[in-house]
């Protein structure tokens, strides 16, 4: 396709804007990365901008050489995969039937689900419930209680709506049941949304730690972010220091920066792999009903 000159200029203007935005996002990350690799003295003097000063792998070495942390990294990875799979299955099971206009009770179920997004009673009742269910301090407690996000269900359902019902109807005429329609038609056409929601769930699980903090006493199953959170708190808990008259011998701020890397890098590795699902035209066009 030959582009007009105006379009070409427009392309470059857009590219320039994107570049500016990229820089505002990239530079801080590079700065944090540089901090995580710098000697503490350079950090004290505030000399680090974009490049590490006094190359220092202590923070990483500390985390990666301690079996506690490497195990936690591995465990969090496994947990994330399991959790994402469970959550995606649940989300599909929830969103798909709700796309059938004729389903009786659909409005009621929709309202019932939506309601839960707004009314939430806090940690203590959840704790008591989990205790009664026997889930406390067992690995399943990191998977089941948060297995469904209403927000994600709504997103998925919206995407399913954009798939023309004519496809479903013609399949039904051929004798396909709802399950077959789901597996043969809807899912293959929903790759972008499946990729997106998988990413959302995975990131939430990888970075989440508050449920482990409250409900998981067994340190073997602590996700990596919880371990890092504890390190950070033990280094920076000044109010505690004032009360107790001491500060827990902690690490310097290199570690603070390193913890950010542990949050970001794994997702950075995963995202490009998911990006190939975002190809234009992977779904058929949206036909407004």
């Amino acid at each position, binding site marked *: 396709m030959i582009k007009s000159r105006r379009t070409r200029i427009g392309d470059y203007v857009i590219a320039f804007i994107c570049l500016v935005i990229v820089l505002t996002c*990239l530079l801080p990350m590079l700065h944090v990365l540089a901090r995580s690799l710098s000697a503490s003295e350079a950090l004290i003097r505030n000399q680090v901008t974009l490049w590490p000063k006094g190359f220092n792998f202590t923070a990483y070495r500390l985390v990666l050489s301690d079996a506690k942390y490497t195990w936690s990294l591995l465990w969090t990875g496994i947990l994330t995969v399991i959790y994402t799979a469970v959550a995606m299955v649940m989300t599909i099971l929830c969103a798909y039937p709700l796309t059938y206009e004729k389903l009786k009770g659909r409005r009621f179920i929709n309202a019932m689900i939506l309601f839960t997004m707004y009314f939430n009673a806090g940690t203590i009742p959840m704790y008591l419930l989990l205790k009664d269910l026997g889930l406390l301090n067992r690995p399943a407690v990191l998977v089941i209680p948060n297995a469904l996000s209403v927000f994600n269900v709504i997103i998925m359902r919206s995407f399913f709506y954009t798939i023309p019902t004519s496809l479903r109807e013609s399949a039904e005429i051929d004798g396909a049941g709802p399950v077959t329609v789901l597996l043969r038609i809807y899912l293959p056409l929903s790759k972008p949304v499946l990729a*997106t929601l998988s990413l959302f769930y995975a990131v939430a699980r990888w970075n989440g730690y508050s449920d482990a903090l409250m409900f998981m006493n067994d340190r073997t199953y602590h996700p990596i972010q919880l371990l890092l959170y504890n390190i950070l708190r033990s280094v920076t808990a000044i109010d505690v220091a004032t009360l107790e008259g001491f500060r827990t011998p902690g690490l310097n701020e290199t570690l603070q920066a390193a913890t950010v890397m542990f949050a970001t890098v794994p997702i950075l590795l995963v995202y490009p792999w998911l990006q190939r699902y975002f190809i234009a035209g992977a779904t058929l*066009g949206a036909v407004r009903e």
Partner: protein
Amino acid sequence: MVLSSVKARRAVNYLRSYWTLYLMLLLPIAYFVIFRYIPMTYILIAFKKYSLFQSVWEMPWADNYGFEYFIRAFSSRDFLNAVRNTVMLNVLDLLIGFPAPIIFALLLNELPFRRFKRFTQSVTYMPHFLSWIIIAGLALQVFAPSTGLVNVVLRRLGFDPIPFLNHPTWWVFTYVFLGVWRNLGWNTIIYLAALTGVNPELYEAAEIDGANRWQKIRYVTLPGIQPTIVTLLILNLGQILSSDFDRPYALTNALVYDVSNVIATYVYTYGVRGLQFSLTTAIGLFQSVVCVIFLFTANALAKRYGERGIW
């Protein structure tokens, strides 16, 4: 006689085709009932005198027909101030932070440089993974009045330093800006996914009709992702009174307290730290009710304009 057997047959037919759907819904509904609705009875403590050692039904009712804690919250100047700030900050976030990812997604969609486009996508969602504590630290390094990068440059150029973080009005601007910056790339993901659903044939048709770039966007792209935009808008409007804790808590300081005090920080100080569970729940209930009202309204408005609502 004839009527009821017709009805019966219709019912049987209905069930025969739809039973798998109900089966599929079984697990999710069980989940909601167990993990959301059962704990929800606890919301009653908003009307009761809380005790850690009694069940919800055993606790005595609060004074003033159970509305004691609501009255207490609403007669607190700090609380009203917090509500005002929460609404103000959320509205600003919406006005600026809602269109931003859409525009960015459209821009990315227009980029012909495929590798640069991928690179941009991957980089721009990185800030989303920074916790607000880290961002606050970075913000101080960049925006601090005497030592912040921006102000050092400004001073060297002969301008006065700008109180990004220590003056209420500027602080609000910085607060919103940081929120947009953090979430821009991440929120674009949904729109990018939605954009893949736009039929490429429509673009070709528009091309043939002689449409330029902006016309294509206006008549093909935007309508294509309209359902997504509307859905997200409704959901966002339904969060108008909700309050994030980490963000204002990390960015606040004594000089901007009047605008940085939001419901979440109020609840944390008065409710959580003071072990005032009933108060905390009462405020949460108030927030929920208001949010649901907004949700209903937004949804109804959307339907009025021909959009498909959330339910």
